[in-house]
């Protein structure tokens, strides 16, 4: 086996470029489809059809949406801070794209690893760039010069603090069982049994924290359409607003990818090797549907409920999970 987690292992530069372009192209082709999928599924969950007018089955709806957003004025309030206001939507896009790099789509095949890059620090990299997205929200909300945006930004900061810790602890169990931080190694460690079975609690905590991380219902407090008029995005319009929405979906893809790799056996599945990315995509698709399903079901939590769930339930539970896993790993 090629030493994948070896820091001295590197592929040719052109291979890396082609890989990154392919991953970028595929994910950005999926993103608009996800918006339609979400709207159609939410519709079905509510006895409706969802968008079905633009193109066959409404598949061209995102095209119409983007066309509309692009034709809008890039408005900026008078008391906003110009540079930060523009930086706001850009940072989350950057963090989302960076995080895509470590999602493993498949093993090393014919000398080419079917992943962006297999960094030895793996999951730490995900946390590092994932947290960057919140800087975008904070800066965007704060620099808008509007109290609703500011409230939304503060909420997102509080949410980040409450959930990043539990998320990390939830993944710690998996890391201990596989003995590696590299996502590729972690997937290899699941050849016998998917980590969702021994780490079921960790999976639940990770998903709950993942909803918070992606600002999705029931933890969509930073946005809170009804109370905060879209929170930190209030003052944004046009494609800047659109990129915030885009990032939300990109983060769902990233969190689904990480969850699929860490808990659902990544690319593992029956069939020949070229099916691996398909398996990974299928697992991610399942998780994305779950994200939408939960959004259609659970109402938004109150701010204090969010806090107490994060600190009083998820954090102790995650700590206990880590403790139990540590004992288990040492004993066996």
């Amino acid at each position, binding site marked *: 086996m090629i030493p994948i987690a070896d820091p001295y292992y590197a592929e040719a530069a052109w291979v890396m470029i082609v890989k990154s372009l392919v991953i970028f192209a595929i994910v950005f082709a999926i993103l608009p489809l996800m918006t339609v999928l979400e709207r159609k599924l939410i519709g079905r969950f509510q006895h409706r*059809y969802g968008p079905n007018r633009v193109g066959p089955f409404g598949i061209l709806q995102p095209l119409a949406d983007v066309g509309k957003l692009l034709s809008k004025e890039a408005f900026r309030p008078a008391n906003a801070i110009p540079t930060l206001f523009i930086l706001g939507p850009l940072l989350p896009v950057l963090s989302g794209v960076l995080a895509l790099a470590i999602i493993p789509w498949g093993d090393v095949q014919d000398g080419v690893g079917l992943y962006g890059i297999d960094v030895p620090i793996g999951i730490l990299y995900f946390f590092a760039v994932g947290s960057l997205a919140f800087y975008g929200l904070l800066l965007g909300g704060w620099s808008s010069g509007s109290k609703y945006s500011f409230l939304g930004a503060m909420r997102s900061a509080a949410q980040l603090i409450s959930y990043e810790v539990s998320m990390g602890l939830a993944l710690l169990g998996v890391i201990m069982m596989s003995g590696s931080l590299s996502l590729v190694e972690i997937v290899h460690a699941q050849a016998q049994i998917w980590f969702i079975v021994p780490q079921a609690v960790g999976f639940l905590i990770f998903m709950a924290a993942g909803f918070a991380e992606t600002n999705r219902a029931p933890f969509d407090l930073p946005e809170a359409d009804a109370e905060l008029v879209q929170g930190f995005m209030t003052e944004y319009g046009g494609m800047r607003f659109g990129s915030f929405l885009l990032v939300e979906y990109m983060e769902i893809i990233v969190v689904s990818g990480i969850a699929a790799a860490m808990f659902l056996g990544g690319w593992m599945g029956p069939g020949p090797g070229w099916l691996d990315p398909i398996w990974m995509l299928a697992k991610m698709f399942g998780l994305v549907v779950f994200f939408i399903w939960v959004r259609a*079901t659970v109402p938004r939590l109150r701010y204090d409920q969010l806090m107490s769930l994060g600190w009083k339930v998820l954090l102790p539970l995650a700590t206990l999970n880590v403790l139990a896993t540590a004992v288990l790993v040492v004993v066996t």
Partner: protein
Amino acid sequence: MTEFPYLKDDSVVEVQRGPDPGGVGGAYRAFRETLRGLKTTMARLIEGPLTIQYPEEKTPVYPRFRGRHKLHKFEDTGLEKCVGCSLCAAACPADCIRVVAAENIPGERVSAGERYAAVYEINLSRCIFCGYCEIACPFDAITMGHDYELADYDRSDLIFTKEMLLAEPIERTPLKGEGE
């Protein structure tokens, strides 16, 4: 019960409250109820949409639905049922029916009776769809139809003449089925 000394004992209703939130039990209940919610929404997904795709698909109406009026002919002879008696116009609370009667000429009879309606107009922009004309008519010549898509660009286009009222509607409005 001592909290409400001014009330009779049997008028005080004790409201059953849920268990206190919080704690391990609370977390378990929240988890269980979330699962129940997920089941509920999934059941809705399986049931499928209930939307009526309106312009393509129309809401079915009841048989007694009072839509746009229709004038009728005898099916065997092809003569108009209306004899121009103007009872409908007299019954109309909105005063939107105008009837001008004329004598039937032997050989080119228009109606079955002695006279016929030379002019029969309903101003649908005034009509309140009460159905009194239908009740007043002694020959069942006028009935309320099922058409409800009557919007138009011009008020004068809403004055329906006898020919328009006699003609079959271009598109039939679906009827509700048994027990629908």
